């Protein structure tokens, strides 16, 4: 089954086959990073633009490394972005980048749907590197890739996602991806951090982390940002750690080989203890490594789809 989409906007928009294709392709790309010369000429002569409206070192660097290992040229643009200051519109910025004959825009934006709006206004590829609370597809793809690599399959797995689901694009993308591939997902968070109607996607909801950990094959721990939104109620930090923090004591009662994931950067002692972050169940650094392979696969596939259309 070929890849036909010029953009990657979110996992909601992908079929299970398309998700599998990205994962399979990423598997082939993973080997490239193990070579002495970590570079292939697949995107030689292509230009990828990292267009970041939100500061993010990890994701930007990961995309940059991925693009460079494919021999693409990478340009980084960070846009100072405040709702007060009115500058060039998003679409105008996109069209200017397109006029530079760039081939791919990798965009991080604080507004949900920004990547969708850009993608439908441009002929060149748009890869969503996180938009508001909406989606962060490559993060979920690398999470799922890591799980598949560790456990062998996704279908039938029980995956817990713990933390601020309501304000998390990582959670949303993971929910779409995991449920499409047949995993059972349980969201574990204080009630105020569960967004309305989320059970429509087929996930279960729990506020008892110990109960959830008993049957979970993997737990994806989200980063907690307590300072985020003055209008939204947030749990008290210590109270949160007490009720939902992933600790060695909690893990001791979980399945022995439970896979512990975190999209980073970790708040040690807030959503998980240091012992867990550095412990044997943690695959947090493998996620970072796999992120390169997954992003190489995505950049390769979207640029191939665009070629095929021309």
């Amino acid at each position: 089954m070929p890849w036909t989409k010029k953009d990657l906007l979110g996992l909601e928009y992908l079929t299970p086959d398309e998700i599998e294709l990205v994962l399979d392709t990423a598997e082939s790309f993973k080997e490239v990073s193990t070579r002495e010369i970590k570079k292939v000429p697949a995107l030689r002569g292509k230009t990828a633009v990292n267009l970041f409206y939100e500061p993010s070192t990890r994701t930007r660097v990961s995309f940059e490394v991925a693009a460079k290992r494919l021999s693409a040229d990478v340009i980084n643009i960070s846009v100072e972005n405040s709702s007060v200051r009115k500058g060039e519109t998003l679409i105008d910025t996109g069209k200017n980048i397109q006029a530079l004959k760039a081939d791919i825009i990798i965009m991080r934006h604080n507004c949900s749907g920004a990547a969708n709006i850009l993608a439908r206004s441009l002929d060149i590829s748009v890869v969503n590197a996180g938009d508001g609370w909406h989606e962060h597809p490559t993060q979920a793809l690398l999470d799922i890739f890591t799980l598949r690599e560790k456990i062998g399959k996704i279908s039938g797995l029980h995956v817990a996602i713990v933390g601020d689901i309501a304000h998390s694009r990582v959670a949303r993308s993971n929910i779409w991806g995991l449920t499409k591939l047949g995993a059972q997902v349980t969201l574990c968070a204080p009630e105020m951090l569960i967004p309305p109607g989320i059970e429509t996607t087929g996930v279960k909801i729990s506020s008892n982390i110990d109960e959830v950990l008993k049957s979970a094959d993997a737990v994806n721990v989200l980063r907690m940002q307590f300072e985020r939104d003055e209008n939204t109620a947030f749990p008290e930090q210590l109270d949160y750690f007490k009720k939902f923090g992933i600790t060695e004591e909690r893990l001791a009662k979980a399945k022995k080989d439970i896979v512990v994931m975190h999209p980073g950067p970790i708040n040690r002692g807030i959503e998980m203890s240091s012992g867990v972050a550095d412990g044997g169940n943690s695959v947090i650094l493998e996620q970072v490594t796999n992120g390169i392979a997954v992003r190489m696969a995505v950049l390769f596939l979207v640029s191939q789809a665009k070629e095929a259309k021309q």
Partner: protein
Amino acid sequence: MKEKVKILDQECIGRVIMRIAHEIIERNKGGAGLCVIGIRNRGVYIAQRIAACIKQIEGMDVATGALDITLYRDDLALATGQPLVRKTEIDFDINDKNLILVDDVLYTGRTIRAALDALIDFGRPKSIQLAVLVDRGHRELPIRADFVGKNIPTSKKESVEVYLNESDGSDEVLIAEKE
């Protein structure tokens, strides 16, 4: 597609691969320092068979690997059907080895060009020698094979189809006229 003509059958393929193995050993004065790398897909199976023959003759294991050249193709930007990227598996050091690169059919030479570029990224072999099951001519690049199973003069209108047990359930080489 018109009628297909069988050029090689199972027995012939077996003999041809054994002969190539003998030639490789002869040229390289034994099996020491050899490695065999096949180009995905069918080159990999031929490479494994060559390695098995060398073991039979010399009684020694020869490192074998698989190379996917998709990312090195010069027509990647023009490809109509989307190429599937498959795994490259070379889990040994190719530096200072006599590397036998194996493919099923040698035609324009562009695949071999891509393979040579890919191999150079893995290290600096002492030599790279090319072994193919079929050479059908019509080279577009200055490339030739060191070991050829069978030379089959063809026209560009014809296609050469290689079937191997490992991937196709039978061993045969057919030649057919394109529409």
